[in-house]
């Protein structure tokens, strides 16, 4: 079965580096980065292209830092 | 002797304890001291600062607007306090994350790569001790030994194994100031 294709955009200025999204991503797409943003938080980065667009990360993200896209299946 | 100091930085950089260490040490030397933190909903980040006064005489106001020395650990604090240093006073700052350096010419400015030094020493938490050492080099108002005694008071017992590292950091700070 072909995997659904998804993608996320992380607003690194908004991210507070809580890393809750990292925990909930089934495809391990997200990880703590090693740079801090303006507010001093270790923001999260994308580390692979396996995203399925499941929205778990965006749902759990307290600060709404993640936008999720998913390819329509019947396209 | 009267030394009026502002110490400012991000919450978590240890600016409040720097002031406290100075005060504890001051007491050991029978000096009058006053430490006034900015307080507020710091719980949730933001900047912190404390006014620290060390004096031979009774301290009148713990609140002052102009300082003999400003010790500054980040850009917002630099922006805020550069102009609060008395003419002829000292501005000591950690330059690591500073993008707009100070411009005053009527004060003595000391710039330290303290964060980098701390990173080199493998513990970013000792940034404040490096700064403190630098300050004491510039203004030797308190004896080194007493500072270490003050440090012991302020550092919670469970971190006392870090005392040697902190002591080293103070010394490093002293070294970094070109005399």
């Amino acid at each position, binding site marked *: 079965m072909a995997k659904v294709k998804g993608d996320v955009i992380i607003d690194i200025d908004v991210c507070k580096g809580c890393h809750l999204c990292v925990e909930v991503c089934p495809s391990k797409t997200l990880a703590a980065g090693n740079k801090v943003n303006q507010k001093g938080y270790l923001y999260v980065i994308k580390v692979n292209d396996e995203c399925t667009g499941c*929205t778990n990360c965006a749902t759990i*993200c307290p600060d709404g830092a993640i936008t*999720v896209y998913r390819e329509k299946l019947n396209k | 002797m009267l030394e009026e100091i502002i110490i400012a930085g991000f919450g978590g950089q240890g600016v409040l304890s720097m002031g406290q260490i100075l005060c504890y040490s001051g007491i050991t030397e029978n000096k009058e001291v006053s430490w006034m933190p900015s307080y507020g909903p710091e719980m949730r980040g933001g900047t912190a600062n404390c006014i620290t006064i060390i004096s031979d005489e009774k301290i009148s106001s713990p609140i002052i607007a102009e300082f003999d020395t400003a010790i500054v650990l980040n850009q917002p604090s630099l922006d805020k306090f550069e102009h609060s240093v008395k003419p002829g006073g000292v501005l000591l700052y950690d330059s690591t994350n500073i993008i707009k350096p100070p411009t005053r010419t009527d004060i003595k400015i000391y710039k330290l790569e303290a964060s980098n030094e701390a990173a080199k020493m493998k513990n970013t938490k000792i940034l404040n001790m490096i700064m403190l050492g630098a300050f004491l080099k510039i203004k030797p108002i308190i004896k080194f030994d007493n500072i270490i005694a003050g440090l012991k008071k302020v550092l919670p017992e469970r971190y006392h194994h870090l005392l040697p590292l902190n002591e080293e950091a103070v010394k490093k700070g002293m070294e970094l100031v070109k005399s």
Partner: protein
Amino acid sequence: MSDTMQVAENLVYKKPKTLLDVAMHYCPGCGHSTTHKILCEVIDELNIQSEVVGVAPVGCSVIAYNYLDIDMQEAPHGRASAVATGIKRVLPEKLVFSYQGDGDLAAIGTGETLHTCNRGENILIIFINNGIYGMTGGQMAPTTLENMKSTTTPFGRDVKKMGYPIKMTELVAHLPGTYYVTRQSVHTPANVRKTKAAIKKGFEYQRLNKGTCFIEVVSNCPSNWKMTPIDSNKWLVENMLPFYPLGDIKVPSKEEN
């Protein structure tokens, strides 16, 4: 890949528009933020921005009104449900909610909470239970667990001296004025979705003048629990949830619905 993906028609999740574009002051990973976000999602989805009036408490969420793009009022500590009652009584056709912490709702505000529920005020009460006074720096809350440490129970909460953790939600469920009473959480995506559904129901029942809807959200306080956000959620699962079990406590009976 991204370039072709990131088009409007593929968009499946984005920050709700009622959530203003400013950074919230909450600590990283705090359940307050999550709850604000889903509250806004509900307001967006029900398209009720112009009908909603919210009441913020005194607690970490004291400036909730800085983040939610709706009309809001502050309340003195503990009095949010009285303030909400005042609003609802003169604007019965509007949708009114209060948003309160556990100290606010279950300590100083106990009387107001109980009587508001007892009158069956047609409002929605969202109750963030993080077992601690977050705002003031981690003192014991009425909901603090047995033996749990806080700045005012440095040796752990001794229930014999300091009282038992209160299950406010179960208590108000006993009152005939409450219509829908549930305990939820926001520590996993699934729970976030359930809580959101509960909030949505709360507004829907309010529109039908059903009485008080009361939604407890068992939440975390990484800062005062002194844990990382991830650890705080683990601790929540292991310690809070056994004592504050999730699920509906009072649901509308079939006939009523």
